[in-house]
């Protein structure tokens, strides 16, 4: 069969190499030359023990939650603005969507300039550069252990939640802003396609029943958009869990590792420090996180297809 070479290529390059990475993560190859003697789970213990990786896990969580939420809301708002029989619809659609055609590196370079504290938006809006430090801000917003909530958490044995490892690094929000600029148009396109697939009769029927526009949206339109929302969350979520190019171009590590991400940690561990086994362990953690999101989605879409 002519498809055999492709199957072989995917089998080897996707599944075979994932297997090899998983194997490397259990070896002692933490120097330039390969050493495939078994290390058990020592590399995983080592990375989870590493304060930088702990911070990275916090960062990737904060980035994923903020980015997915912001892009979804903005995309939905844009789609609804566009879907009102406006003039120059094509123009607005293109303006919101063109960042998708650009590489994260270009986005990162431009947004670094836009958010440089001594210039950019600070000088445009006359903001004080000493308080608006954007991606150079080392502040981590977290629960104080002295605050009422913090004390209560301490009393019930959850005092660790008041550490900065469970906070929100302010610098990361600049990366979120740039990522939202780049990807929200994509969400808009998804929602716009979803909105236009909803027959007008459904909305009209609700209006005839006396529903206000807001209620029509809330009870008729939004539920019908659920499959679109799920797809968008999955796509955005898996992109943000592996985000790399954007942070590298904008702020590779950040103040106090405030914009560091697992992908960056993996790269520097493996290819700068030649600790290939530890780098592989980071990669395995990333793969597991993404598989948790993607595998159910593939099964879900597969089922939907069979139902047709």
């Amino acid at each position: 069969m002519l498809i055999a070479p492709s199957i072989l290529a995917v089998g080897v390059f996707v599944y075979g190499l994932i297997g090899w990475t998983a194997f490397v993560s259990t070896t002692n190859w933490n120097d330039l030359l390969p050493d495939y003697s078994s290390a058990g789970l020592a590399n995983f213990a080592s990375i989870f023990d590493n304060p930088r990786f702990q911070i990275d896990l916090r960062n990737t969580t904060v980035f994923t939650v903020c980015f997915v939420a912001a892009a979804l809301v903005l995309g939905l708002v844009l789609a609804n603005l566009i879907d009102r029989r406006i003039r120059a619809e094509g123009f607005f659609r293109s303006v919101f969507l063109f960042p998708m055609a650009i590489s994260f590196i270009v986005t990162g370079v431009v947004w670094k300039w836009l958010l440089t504290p001594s210039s950019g938006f600070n000088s445009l809006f006359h903001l004080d550069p000493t308080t608006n430090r954007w991606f150079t801000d080392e502040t981590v917003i977290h629960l104080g252990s002295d605050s009422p909530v913090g004390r209560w958490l301490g009393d019930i044995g959850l005092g660790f939640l008041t550490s900065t490892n469970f906070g929100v690094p302010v610098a990361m929000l600049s990366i979120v802003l740039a990522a939202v600029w780049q990807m929200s148009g994509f969400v808009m396109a998804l929602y716009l396609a979803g909105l236009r697939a909803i027959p007008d009769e459904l909305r009209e029927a609700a209006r005839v029943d006396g529903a206000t526009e807001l209620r029509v949206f809330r009870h008729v339109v939004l539920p019908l958009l659920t499959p679109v929302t799920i797809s968008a969350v999955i796509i955005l979520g898996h992109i943000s869990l592996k985000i790399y190019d954007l942070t590298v171009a904008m702020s590779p590590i950040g103040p106090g590792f405030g914009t560091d991400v697992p992908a960056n940690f993996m790269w520097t561990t493996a290819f700068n420090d030649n600790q290939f086994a530890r780098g592989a362990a980071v990669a395995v953690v990333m793969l597991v996180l993404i598989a948790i999101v993607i595998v159910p989605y593939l099964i879900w879409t597969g089922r939907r297809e069979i139902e047709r």
Partner: protein
Amino acid sequence: MTADAVRSEVLRPRSLSRARRPTVRASRFVLYAALLVMAAFYLTPVYVLLVTGLKGFDEVSLERMWDFPQGLSLTGFADAFDKLAPNLANSFRLVIPATLISAAIGSLNGYILAKWRFRGSEVLFPLILFGMFIPYQAILIPLLQVTRGLGVAGSIEGLILVHVVYGIPITTLIFRNYYAAIPNELIEAARVDGADFVRIYRDVLLPLSISGFVVVLIWQFTSIWNDFLFAVTLTEQSNWPVTVALNNLAGSFSVEWNVQMAGALLAALPTLLVFVFLGRYFVRGLLAGSLKG
């Protein structure tokens, strides 16, 4: 109709024949004001790219970042082009063959998966698709070993191979959905006429594939051009495509902002032009990669 075709239908504006509800002038005004504010947000980086790139070295100051250039200076672009020209050439040497080969492979795979169901093809497809969602970090270390073993380490050829292989899932997906929309009766009729597997593909499907090819070519062109991770890991400096070179340029403190911005614009220009002229197909690729069936 494929989902793709449905989507390109539905992306069209609502038909004007629909009865117009009475609209309040004020609400239209608010609507357009909101649209314009949002448009300004999306276009701000473009404005900054242009005005900074077109400024001379002496005019690039932090305070005057938002001002129009006093006189058009192309020195920023000339400098950036000097620095990035070899990398732009590398990007083209990479993107053109990789895009063409992946489209050919995707078309063939899509044809087989859509029209020649065989035992296990239902299971095979999601297994192939999984390959487009994985974090490439999970294959990067062995991939470097493999390219060394194949003797293509550091080279553009090696990078072409990598993009072709990891492009298989998405190109197969787009073509499979595209071909699924072509009626089976057409294939059956050709088969009754004695056409075999190859002739059905060549004489029946291929002539109907043009817009499918446009979607896939644009998709692959854009994603390979914009790739950074594979390029920075697998190529040596002389073979760096433009994304890696731009990141290097922007990371260097000795390079002025006007040169950086001009460089960013040069690196973005090819995919931006594709978007401007073939945006419709770009959107179809985008949607095909996210929602299937």
